[in-house]
């Protein structure tokens, strides 16, 4: 099994620890992981901004980086969803299709491909989970409260394998945090208001730690938390699951 690690551009630059944790987590589970070094970005920042037409170069580079692997795994539901929905290459659509079907978000790779049943790690603290919308509703990492289907959550399933962890219930568990890519600056007021609603939900439930499947959502919420000097630590789910946090 040849597995490539796809590290979102902003994680690479600002959250190397999240990528390291992801790599270690996979290695702990016996997976041999490669990091194709010419990778850059999935192109989502342009595409969500309405400039899908500018993503051709990015797409080509992505396909070049990840062709030949059985699985491409990434610690970001949002970037994975973007690749699955929008990675195309007019000059080599077959290669694009192959990559599109082989890309997995980290949690779903663990639950669906590796079929992880136990993790030998522990974590002390009251933890709130923010499942990013793109992972949850887009990739179906978890059921959404709008749809009348039985509850499930792949990230939660994994977190419950962690010893000593205490997951806190939330009032509006799957409300969007307001990051939304360029939305976080073009609609700064609403974006921050949405993030603050999430944070007050965590505070009301005495959460000590906020975790999630998408560092972008967490970066936005962490920005608000740190500005307000609130006692909440922010960790990507890989950092908890790898046992090094």
């Amino acid at each position, binding site marked *: 099994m040849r597995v490539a690690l796809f590290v979102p551009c902003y994680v690479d630059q*600002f959250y190397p620890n999240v990528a390291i944790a992801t790599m270690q987590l996979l290695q702990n589970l016996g997976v041999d992981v490669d990091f194709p070094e010419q990778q850059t970005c999935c192109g989502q920042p342009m595409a969500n901004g309405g400039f899908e037409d500018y993503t051709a170069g*990015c797409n080509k580079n992505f396909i070049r980086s990840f062709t030949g692997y059985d699985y491409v795994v990434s610690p970001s539901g949002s970037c994975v969803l973007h690749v699955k929905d929008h990675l195309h290459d007019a000059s080599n659509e077959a290669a694009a299709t192959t990559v599109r079907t082989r890309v997995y978000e980290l949690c779903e790779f663990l639950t669906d491909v590796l079929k992880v049943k136990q993790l030998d790690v522990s974590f002390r603290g009251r933890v709130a989970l923010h499942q990013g919308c793109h992972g949850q509703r887009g990739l179906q990492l978890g059921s959404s409260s709008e749809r009348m289907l039985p509850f499930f959550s792949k990230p939660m399933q994994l977190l419950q394998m962690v010893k000593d962890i205490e997951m806190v219930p939330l009032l509006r568990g799957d*409300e969007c945090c307001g990051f939304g890519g360029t939305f976080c600056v073009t609609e700064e007021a609403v974006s921050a208001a949405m993030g603050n609603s999430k944070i007050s939900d965590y505070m009301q439930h005495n959460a000590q730690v906020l975790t999630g499947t998408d560092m972008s959502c967490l970066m936005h919420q962490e920005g608000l938390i740190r500005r307000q000097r609130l006692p909440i630590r922010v960790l990507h789910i890989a950092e908890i699951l790898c046992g090094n946090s």
Partner: protein
Amino acid sequence: MSFTHTSHPKAAAEFVQNTNRMNWHDEALWFIRTKRDRIAQTVPDWELLRQQASEIKAHTLSKLDTYLQQFEENAIANGVTVHWAADAAEHNAIVLKLLQKVGATKIVKSKSMLTEECHLNPFLEKQGIEVVDTDLGERIVQLRNEPPSHIVLPAIHIKKEEVGQLFHEHLGTKKGSADPQYLTNAAREHLRQKFLAADAAITGVNFAVAETGGFVVCTNEGNADLGAHLAKLHIACMGIEKVIPQTKDLGVFLRLLARSATGQAITTYSSHFVKPAPGAEMHIVIVDNGRSTQLGREDFRNSLKCIRCGACMNTCPVYRRSGGHSYHNAVAGPIGAILAPNIDMKEYADLPFASTLCGSCTDVCPVKIDIHNQLYKWRQVLTREGHAPAAKKAGMKMMASVLASPKKFSFSGKMARRMLRWFPKLAVNGTLNPWGRQRELPKVPDQSFREWYKQHKKETK
């Protein structure tokens, strides 16, 4: 009432500024969303029902011309006069002519988003005709000289104390009274006079049934019935997408509509109109106003499935925190943002960007419109059609060139981290960078992951 144009981000920022009101607005709508969840849970196979509704609509849209003609034929056979309007202006002219023919000067109108879309009220008022909106929420916004902020709950942005003040000024209720029961009674008294004096009634249409030529109007207040039964002239206005094939399809849509809209099992009144009463006239105006253009846009066709339940607004975290007026269009919220650019791309170029693409609207929609995907697609169309700001375009082009090249990416990543470490205040506190107004930037690490990987490659293997 029509809108003066302020872009969504600006109007939304104003709405957010009043934190208490924003939170109150958010909670009020979230309450309705949870009410909807509770009642949807009681319906076995809710998801199947949505699927069925979506497919009936898809089928109908694929044969819209046939069903519309069938509807017209049957309606005519029932003794109803049918009119066709290509756009808002034609619609308004037809309504005016019908009113003038009988010399009507006092009109009662129940809720109709179509007439809002066509700006019928100001048009008729200019001709010296009085139009009274008889839905309580609509009457409230009408008295405030404002457009509705929500398609189902037109006055959801107004607090009861403000209604008390408004009614004190216009209806002479006691000063300072905000008791909903008292105020509703006052409105009822006031509207009763209007109903009795009306020369004609205008209603909307929720569903037009092709096989019978009849139509259904859903209200909670019975105001459509009261108006239509008392006046000698009933004009029902509908968009071409309101037609459904058969009466039995109502069993699907009526079950979904009120549950999705307000969390009720069914609207208090689901009134079936088939033919005029003896001595009275009934007219139906069927309006296109851009709908056939939307039907022709493959990516956006599904937006015509909408049954105007408003659930996508109640669930939308952006709508709840920016208010309906920030969308400067008759239909606000996520659905408004995919309908409006069809009519005027330039005017509404901001709306598809007023979303995080969280997808809650898509999951809540009773007819399964892929709303957030259409928002994404509108962004691409608007950009291609030249409606993106030049500075954004230049920035995106630059970003694209960096991200297409591993070398440029590594280099600029390093530079960006260095800049942030050397001049952190630059990025954080400046008004130039909206990120930093309320948020810290991430702490800058010494190394990127790729730099770390280069060093540790050997040991990690």
